[in-house]
């Protein structure tokens, strides 16, 4: 074991401690094995699998309609976007023509899901660095969105609103009004977020210059979502491979170049503004039409391989289906954003302090079921 002499009387040596699996800052059952020297981190090794359910193996025996329901349980904060990813893969494979109404509603709910996920992240982020108040502010606004989701489809979190071919039901008559009310409400509340946390000098000192990730490393580690964009890496799937109604709207990709914890924080705050603008552009122009095209009761994909990527609140989710022409996939792989984002944690945390690790992990925004698929 390496021993370094700080001065003639005191010696420090490396030792290792467990962070998790029940640590509040790991947001779920993630166990990190930390090798530390005093308070300086020498190595971070994640230990995974506490809640692994082997969704990929289950998919090999399930029908395509059933698979959609399993995806809610991966990244539960982006449940609707996960559902959409599987539905898009199946629809593209079958070459189904999806009504514009469905595309627009999917995009609106997808962006509302993103705002809801970022609200929760913002509240928890503040709490992780010692500002408990943010938790209540974040949840206050998120509640309103969950109410809208509940009225639309009956569920607040694991929505299951998408089916291959469209949506399970049409939107509620109140939907448009409630979403507009939310936009008006949230536009007055989002600046509050900045006043409460972003501009706080203690918060800035804890996050600026901490956990720096360069652009080259971001690409090499497969970082995506706000984590990649904070390092100046343009990786927004909505821009580069638009799906649903995202090619009909204009929005800016939130990009920062610093690559530190504060940049990742700022990107998410900016993304909430952009999502609001996307919803605003679409909410008055929901086309009339069917909410679903009928598919066969037993969906069989043609023989071949299909890949679809979407942008969840955490980054790029990929669905890779290998079909042999039967009613279940031969192999289905979910490329989850959290898994790749976790893999770079060791790289950016080494050399920092334990307190910085908590702040860094908060801006990676890990959802453990997304990693333990």
């Amino acid at each position, binding site marked *: 074991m390496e021993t370094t002499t700080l001065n003639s009387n005191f010696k420090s040596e490396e030792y290792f401690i467990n962070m998790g699996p029940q640590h509040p800052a790991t947001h779920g059952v993630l166990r990190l094995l930390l090798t530390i020297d005093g308070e300086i981190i020498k190595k971070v090794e994640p230990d*995974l*699998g506490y809640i*692994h359910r*082997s969704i*990929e*193996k289950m998919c090999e*025996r399930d029908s395509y309609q059933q698979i959609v329901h399993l995806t809610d349980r991966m990244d539960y904060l982006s449940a609707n976007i996960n559902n959409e990813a599987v539905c898009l893969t199946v629809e593209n494979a079958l070459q189904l023509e999806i009504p514009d109404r469905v595309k627009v509603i999917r995009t609106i709910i997808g962006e509302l899901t993103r705002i809801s996920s970022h609200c929760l992240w913002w509240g928890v982020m503040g709490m992780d660095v010692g500002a408990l108040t943010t938790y209540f502010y974040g949840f206050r606004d998120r509640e309103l969105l969950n109410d809208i989701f509940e009225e639309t489809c009956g569920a607040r979190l694991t929505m299951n609103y998408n089916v291959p071919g469209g949506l399970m039901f049409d939107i509620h008559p109140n939907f448009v009004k409630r979403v507009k009310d939310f936009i008006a409400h949230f536009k007055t509340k989002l600046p509050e977020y900045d006043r409460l946390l972003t501009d706080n000098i203690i918060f800035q000192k804890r996050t600026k210059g901490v956990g720096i990730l360069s652009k080259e*490393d971001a*690409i*090499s*580690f*497969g970082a*995506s979502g706000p984590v990649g964009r904070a390092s100046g*890496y*343009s*990786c927004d799937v909505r821009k*580069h491979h638009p799906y649903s109604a995202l090619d009909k709207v204009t929005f800016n990709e939130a990009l920062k170049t610093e690559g530190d914890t504060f940049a990742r924080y700022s990107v998410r705050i900016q993304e909430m503004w952009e999502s609001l603008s996307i919803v605003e552009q679409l909410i008055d122009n929901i086309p009339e039409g069917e909410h679903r095209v009928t598919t066969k009761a037993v969906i069989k994909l*043609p*023989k*071949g*391989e*299909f*890949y679809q*990527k979407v942008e969840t609140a955490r980054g*790029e989710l*990929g669905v*890779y289906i*290998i079909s042999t022409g039967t009613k279940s996939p031969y*192999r289905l*792989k979910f*490329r989850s954003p959290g*898994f*790749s984002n*976790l*893999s*770079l944690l060791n*790289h950016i945390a080494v050399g920092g302090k334990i307190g910085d690790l908590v702040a860094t992990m908060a801006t990676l925004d890990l959802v453990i079921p997304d990693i*333990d698929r």
Partner: protein
Amino acid sequence: MTNQSLQELIGSWSPNLEFNEEGSQYLNVSVPPEELHAIMLNLKQNEQTSLDYLFCLSGVDWGEELGVVYHLESTEFRHSLVVKTQTSDRENPILDSVYDIWATAEFHEREVFDFFGIRFSNHPNLKRLFLTDEWEGFPLRKDYEDNINMIIK
């Protein structure tokens, strides 16, 4: 680059590559395992291909063979390529690790080892990622049996 020019360029590197575009939205190339690392390094470093983003790495049990599928994209040119490799040795499958080319492969290869039992040579830390060290067998293989935990219709 278009798929055709990609195929011409990469095809000139080795005579043992097989290209396929059928049944997939990407250009697929099959690489023999012994040439995998050299080809992969070229794909990233060549200025014309510049495939610097490994966005998906999946293990696949093809029945007879065990294989790995790499989905690559260039962040500069925005073209994509799918590289496939496979080995027919089910008892002791060994492929080259690409973690030194794309850092994300380190975790993804551990996942493939965990579920398919494919060993990656030169991998810095090849051990089970999700399952416990005592776990027997590799669950995502098609011949895996577990009478207690797996529900088969």
